[in-house]
């Protein structure tokens, strides 16, 4: 249940949605992708209402739990999703490289580690080179090196003009975002660049900044 959400995301930016689990990050992202039934309000993506058929080619969504076929190989999954979005065949190799799975193309997805499965799921969303990528906790369970590599990929995509909306509950990932949306209890605590948030709260790290904002919110007026 989200309330009084009013927020915009700049085209071509990496925007982080940060907050504890259960704060509404997933619901917000589902609303943006257009799979969430919303009671009131409107969500506009690339000028069209969220979930509009014209957006299905332009918006990529990766759910928190990997949503790929566990009984197929990595390559078979990519081939199927690639056919749906009409991606050319050589995109599969390219995407596998981007997520660091080029050596696992022939492996059955169920036999992979959870981090690898998450990357297969990410790769399927990247195949069609959507203009907007909505990623729900894409780096959960990944080792630090892979996390760094994926964030490099995200920034490379954003330099090419892709808009990325990435949720996370890890504060050090917030530093890597251009813009942040901090959420708590189904509403937005604040938004801004990491620099702005630190300055506004007079703190050194974003973790501290988040705590400071919560304390301010909870303080009796």
């Amino acid at each position, binding site marked *: 249940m989200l309330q009084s959400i009013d927020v915009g995301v700049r085209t071509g930016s990496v925007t982080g949605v940060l907050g504890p689990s259960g704060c509404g990050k997933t619901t917000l992202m589902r609303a943006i992708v*257009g799979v969430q039934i919303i009671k009131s309000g409107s969500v506009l993506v690339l000028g069209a209402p969220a979930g509009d058929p014209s957006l299905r080619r332009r918006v990529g969504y990766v759910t928190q739990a990997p*949503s790929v076929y566990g009984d197929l190989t990595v390559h078979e999954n990519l081939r*199927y999703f690639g056919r*749906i*979005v009409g991606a050319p065949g050589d995109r599969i190799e390219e995407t596998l490289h981007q997520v660091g799975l080029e050596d696992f193309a022939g492996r059955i997805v169920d036999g992979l580690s959870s981090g690898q499965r998450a990357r297969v799921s990410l790769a399927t969303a990247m195949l069609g080179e959507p203009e907007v990528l909505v990623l729900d906790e894409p780096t959960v369970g990944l080792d630090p090196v892979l996390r760094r590599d994926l964030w490099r990929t995200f920034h490379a995509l954003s330099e090419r003009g892709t808009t990325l909306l990435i949720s996370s509950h890890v504060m050090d990932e917030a530093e890597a975002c251009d813009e942040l949306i901090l959420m708590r209890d189904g509403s937005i605590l604040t938004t801004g660049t990491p620099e702005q948030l630190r300055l506004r709260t007079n703190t050194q790290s974003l973790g501290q900044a988040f705590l400071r904002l919560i304390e301010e919110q909870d303080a009796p007026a």
Partner: protein
Amino acid sequence: MSPRIAAATALRVVWQIRRDPRTILLLVVVPCVLLTLLKYVLTGQEASFQHIAVPMLGLFPLISMFLVTSITMLRERSSGTLERLMTLPLSKLDILVGYALAFGIVSTFQALAISGVGLWLLDVDVTHPVWIVISLAIINALLGMALGLFLSALARTEFQAVQFMPAFIFPQLLLCGLLVARDQMATVLEVVSNALPMTYAYDALERVASPGELGPEVGRDVVVTAGYTLVALGLGALTLRRRTE
């Protein structure tokens, strides 16, 4: 709808089934074994065996496709892949037609195996061309598939989906005329049986099992069965939702 995406979906489903050789074996071997068992249970009652065997050639594919499809679709829902597909540029019809093609292919193999065993090894006697029997088996399988697709939406777990077989298929087996001719049932039951899809699927099989000219009734049965299949697919499409809570 896009034939390219429907074909890709069919291929994907066939590939998934191919990854599970034990299921393929069960789908093909179990009906053949059951038919053989029936033959020996009815030793000395050749007429009864002949009467039941041909309908069985169609009812086995119906039941197994019902089960396999409802579980496959349930998995598609619970794994989140259905939700992902719903965010992609494909139509609901692409998914349904893809499934229909895939299970059509699988059920063709099943129908060929069971008809082969029945007609050539167990001496099931059909006076009509073999292709009619095999076509009816495939039509039955497609009805089972469509019912499975639709009903899978009502199941939240695989346990529930499996229970749908006794809940939805068994009553139809009891009423379709296999055990007791429908005109000998209580009027209420006969009226109910008139509304059930398997009644027509069975009726066509029974007519083909009987010697003598095939009347236009078989054609009517096939049309009604196909109609129910399309209605179930349409209802199945309604259960594929782009937006959820």
